[in-house]
């Protein structure tokens, strides 16, 4: 009987580890940017290319950067959730229009509604690289201290908005 105990223990351990591994989502790569200063940018706004918005303009307040594009299907799925977030008027939501055509982007906002305080144009995705964006949509919450507090990868759903995004915002607002 005793001779089975060790193999059995090893087996149970392995099953446990594999079961844990299966529950992890390999697509969710933890961002190294959490609690780091938000990468600075100065970009032209979508509404008026002659006007620029920079991260310095947002300093001292909690704000959200939502990465979106008109070619991104999940962004369309996420759009109503971002609209409802913006309607709550808790914090300004800035859109980062990632590798998009300005005309397409403007049309997209006209068609579905514009939740963004303003959208900035990252035509070549250079700012996206600085923010570690690897799939659109992504959503960052930046604290009043200018540090990234939370990153959501993929479309924000109503559940993740209620369970994760809003609690983080409320906590930051104090």
């Amino acid at each position, binding site marked *: 009987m005793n001779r089975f105990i060790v193999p059995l223990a090893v087996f149970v351990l392995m099953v446990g580890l594999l079961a844990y591994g299966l529950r992890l989502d390999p697509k969710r*790569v933890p961002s*190294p*940017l959490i609690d780091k200063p938000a990468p600075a940018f100065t970009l032209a706004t979508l509404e008026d290319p002659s006007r620029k918005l920079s991260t310095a303009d947002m300093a001292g307040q909690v704000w959200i950067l939502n990465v979106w594009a008109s070619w991104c299907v999940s962004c369309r799925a996420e759009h109503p959730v971002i609209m409802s977030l913006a309607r709550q008027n808790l914090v300004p939501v800035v859109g980062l229009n990632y590798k998009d055509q300005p005309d397409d982007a403007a049309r997209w906002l006209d068609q579905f509604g514009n939740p963004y305080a303003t959208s900035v144009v990252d035509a070549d*995705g250079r700012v996206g*690289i600085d923010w570690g964006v*690897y799939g659109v949509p992504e959503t960052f919450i930046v604290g009043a201290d200018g540090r990234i507090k939370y990153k959501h990868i993929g479309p924000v759903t109503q559940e993740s908005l209620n369970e994760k995004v809003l609690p983080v915002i409320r906590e930051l607002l104090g």
Partner: protein
Amino acid sequence: MKKTLLVIWLAFFCLPSPAAIETFQFDSPQMEADYKQLVEELRCLVCQNQNLAGSDADLARDLRHETYEMLQQGKTKQQVIDFMVARYGEFVLYRPRFETSTYLLWLGPFLLLVVVLVAVVRRMRASARPADVDAATLAEARQLLESDESKQ
């Protein structure tokens, strides 16, 4: 028949379209070697089981370009790697760094080997050692053997 032949003939022209090949001009063979090594060792985050060199994803193309630009500006390989890790995390490295969080990853196989070796050596020693038998049992065995021989 003619139609079939035509279809077969046309099929020869359905070659897979080659992926876009980027042409980068390198200042030195060393830089080219550095570039090649970097894009081999950095992971594409969009298709996670491909490296930057093998991925056709948009982001991979951007990051290849970024790598090239950085080398062109005279940055070292390590600087490029640090740049990527600062943005995308350790996950981009196909060759993980040797640090506290990865000790087990790097040393685990050797640790396992040591454990197995120790177990094997102990088992071999145990079977090689003569069994402990006390004097009384030995005497009894001898007696049994002798009585067995006397019968024959």
